């Protein structure tokens, strides 16, 4: 009996829940303290937007919405490590990452407000739209990464997927092809412990979700997903590796879904309030705020001020969203093919004309 292969999965963390650094100093990626403040602002903006979106849904002004409460460090940590030219493939909850990449708040609202125009991003033109069929976006990212590689473009594709989504065939297929072709692909598994009502442990017998990467021969690493310092470090490393032609990585971000699954869900039906309460102790904003304040980089008054500014910006976006006239019904024909086939002209006319 001999050993054919051996592996270990590392866990990375820097910032403790109480806001203290675990190590001696900040990780290398931090170029200036101001960088941390900027990222913290992004996280706060995300949270402002998110709570506003939930409120809009509650008052009937938005359809079902999936909150990203508690995911801010994972979203901002990863997205901030990307280059503009890279590609982001989200599922539906990565609001923080989308905003960071330049998707406009109104676009996100339009999408959840039942308007396809929300996926016609004005700025984040490299990125893929929200992808509801779980984990299928991982393969779009893999195929895009293959295109980058074939064309020798120094670009990286980053896909987000949930703990639940990491059970899905498409996720395995993506990591398998990432390994087979040594693709510049980073798969970020946001392990927020729940897939609607199904807990993480019911999804798989694996000790970590990161180790799924081993099935494809990928780099595989676990990180405290509530720790911006750690997430950004791990993401930056994986993205650089990918860009330099060294292949793909699976990153498991350990975090917690502090909200219901969506506004259509009631999590009290299936999970313990105590668990949620405990998770609030570890949430990502608080610890970073504590750290920044401790270091004299941020203050309560700046917090208040920035929150106000966030709310104002969000309100503007909300207004823009609410004022939008519905799209013409004929859009459903007009964007179906590059050119409408003759066969469908009659139907389009019927839709348009008086019935």
């Amino acid at each position, binding site marked *: 009996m001999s050993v054919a292969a051996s592996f270990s999965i590392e866990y990375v963390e820097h910032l403790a829940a109480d806001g203290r650094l675990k190590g001696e100093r900040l990780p290398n990626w931090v170029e200036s303290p101001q960088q941390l403040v900027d990222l913290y602002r992004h996280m706060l903006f995300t949270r402002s937007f998110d709570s506003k979106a939930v409120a809009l849904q509650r008052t009937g002004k938005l359809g079902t919405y999936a909150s990203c409460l508690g995911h801010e460090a994972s979203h901002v940590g990863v997205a901030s490590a990307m280059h503009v030219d890279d590609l982001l493939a989200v599922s539906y909850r990565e609001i923080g990452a989308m905003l960071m990449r330049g998707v406009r708040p109104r676009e996100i609202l339009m999408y959840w407000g039942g308007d396809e125009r929300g996926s016609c991003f004005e700025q984040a033109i490299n990125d893929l739209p929200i992808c509801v069929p779980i984990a299928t976006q991982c393969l779009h990212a893999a195929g895009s990464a293959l295109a980058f590689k074939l064309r020798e473009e120094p670009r990286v594709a980053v896909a987000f997927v949930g703990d639940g989504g990491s059970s*899905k065939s498409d996720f395995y297929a993506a990591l398998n092809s990432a390994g087979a072709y040594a693709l510049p692909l980073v798969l970020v598994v946001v392990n927020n412990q729940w897939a609607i009502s199904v807990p993480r442990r019911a999804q798989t017998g694996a000790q970590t979700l990161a180790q799924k990467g081993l099935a494809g021969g990928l780099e595989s690493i676990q990180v405290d997903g509530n720790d911006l310092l750690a997430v950004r470090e791990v993401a930056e490393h994986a993205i650089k590796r990918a860009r330099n032609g060294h292949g793909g990585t699976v990153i498991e971000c350990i975090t917690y879904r502090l909200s219901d699954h969506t506004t259509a869900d009631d999590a009290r039906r*299936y999970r313990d309030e105590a668990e949620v309460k405990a998770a609030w102790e570890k949430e990502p904003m608080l610890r970073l705020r504590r750290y920044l304040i401790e270091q004299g980089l941020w203050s309560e008054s700046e917090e208040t001020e920035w929150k106000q500014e966030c709310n104002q910006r969000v309100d503007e976006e909300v207004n823009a969203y609410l004022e939008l006239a519905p799209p013409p019904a004929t859009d*459903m024909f007009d964007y179906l093919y590059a050119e409408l086939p003759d066969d469908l002209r009659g139907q389009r006319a019927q839709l348009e004309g008086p019935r």
Partner: protein
Amino acid sequence: MAAITLIEAVTQALAYEMANDGAVLVLGEDVGVNGGVFRATAGLQQRFGDQRVIDTPLDETTIAGLTVGLSLQGMKPVAEAQFDGFVYPMLDQLICHAARMRNRTRGRLTCPLVLRVPWGGGIRAPEHHSEANEAMFTNVPGLRVVLPSSPQRAYGLLLAAIRDPDPVIFFEPKRIYRQYKEEVPDDGEALPLDVCYVLRDGIDVTLVTWGAQVKECLEAAEKLESDGISAEVIDVATLRPLDFATIAESVARTGRCVIVHEAPRTGGFGAEIAARLAEQSMFDLVAPVERVTGWDTHIPLFRLEMKYLPSVERICAAARRTMERS
């Protein structure tokens, strides 16, 4: 006996048959403690335990494949697809295996399974949550395809589906899950799996439909009545195998037929009914057949979805055309 909704009738049928037959089990995403995202399996895990009501990992390929395997061992799994837009990864296992196992083993192995699929649009749901893809299944030999449109039929047909020794795709029109209540005796009486239901008699035109559009058709019939047009309304209920005799008999009397469904028109199951009319009822028809359907587009996100779904107006207009063109 309290009146219940369509979805409550589904739950009632599941509970009845689970109590009646120890081989019946329920599996799917969130069907356990949560009772399903539509609450179709609410209370079942509490009552029958987590060995009978099983949450699955989040993978539709897994659900379909496990369901085939369970059924091969003589279990009677009732799997749930969370929404119709998520059934596509299940097709391979359903078509290549469930639908073929009896035939390809000459009866040695069989797949007595049910796949429940909340179906159709009109509930302002997110993207990929409003599909009507029954036509993917109606060209598949070895499957049965059922689509009830009332609490009573949901109860009776689901019982029949579970008891059937072959695989059944059971679509549930989610728009009318809670539309109205009716009394549904919990008597374990199944309905036949190959019968169309004449819901309203008429002499001028036959409206043939299934699922949520039954509502629109009945409303259209009311409206047409006031114009002096008498419309017969048929709920197809089981698409495969098709009880074409009931439709043909009606059209033999009315001479006119409007087929209504919310799936896209081209290649939809309405085509099959129209085709059979062209084959078998040609000489009975006095006017061209009409189809009122979802457009040949994707069902739009919800700001536009009501412009996509067949409306009472479109149905009435089609019925009137059949009167004018005869």
